[in-house]
């Protein structure tokens, strides 16, 4: 758990991301793919920053690459569904009851690279979650989550 307050930073596990990575890892092992050196790794762990009006998580390049396994081999693009999973995890920090993805739009391809963030904030009764890339003005993806 991280400290509260403006700009408080720490580490946290995103539950949906962790579950997805574990399942992908299991499928890779079942297919005979090498697991590689991953000792001490905590699946789904991210650097998380909690600010006054939003929460942000930096998605590590290795994490994004793991989500691309087998997806357009040789031309890795992070599947939108997995980006949405990260956005929904962040939305849960704002409002745990916001469990319906009203809509999620993708504006740019996201490749495994440094400087990719998921972030979420409350806005007009909804949670707005985004994928943003350092140096890019527009979010690569935006999702709106609401309560049932």
């Amino acid at each position, binding site marked *: 758990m991280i400290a509260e307050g403006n700009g408080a930073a720490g580490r946290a596990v995103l539950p*949906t991301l962790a*579950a*997805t990575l574990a*399942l*992908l890892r*299991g*499928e*890779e092992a*079942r*297919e005979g*793919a090498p697991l590689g050196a991953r000792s001490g790794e905590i699946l789904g762990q991210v650097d998380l920053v909690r600010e006054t009006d939003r929460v942000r998580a930096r998605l590590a390049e290795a994490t994004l690459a793991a989500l*691309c*396994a*087998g*997806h*357009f*081999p040789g031309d890795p*693009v992070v*599947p*939108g*569904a*997995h980006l*949405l*999973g990260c956005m*929904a995890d962040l939305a849960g920090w704002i409002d745990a009851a916001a*469990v*319906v*993805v*009203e*809509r*999620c*739009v*993708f504006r*740019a*391809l996201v490749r495994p690279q440094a400087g990719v963030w998921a972030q979420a904030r409350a806005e007009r009764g909804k949670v707005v979650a985004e994928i943003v890339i350092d140096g890019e003005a527009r979010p690569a993806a935006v999702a709106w*989550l609401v309560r*049932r």
Partner: protein
Amino acid sequence: MTARLMRAEIAGLLRHEAPALLIAEEELAEGAGGARRFTTRALAGWSWPLLVDACAQAAGLCLRGIAVEMIGGAVVVGAYAGIGVDVGLRAGAYTISARPLRCLAKLQVFEFLCVVEGAGAGAAGWPVRVTLTRAA
């Protein structure tokens, strides 16, 4: 009626391989309203994003049957909608029925309704709306 797709053909059309290739085969029977039905691979477990990705793959396979101009193009997911993420999923295979909701051919925008059937998906199935478009 489009010919039934088998596993090797599906992998080639989607340009995915394990663990990302989530659709195993197309079922022979049509779903309601002419929907095409697909069976997923049987996984040891599912997270909801994995099943959403499977829906996108099912929609992509449907697209190849209705929009010839998109064949060979880089098709990407433009949007998802109407997804309840508090679904409880189980191990095993799921069935996905996919049918087009909107086909804006000139804009190259195609929206599909995918309904997931199987353990934990609820009696009426678990709906996922997928919009596919051509990569910019």
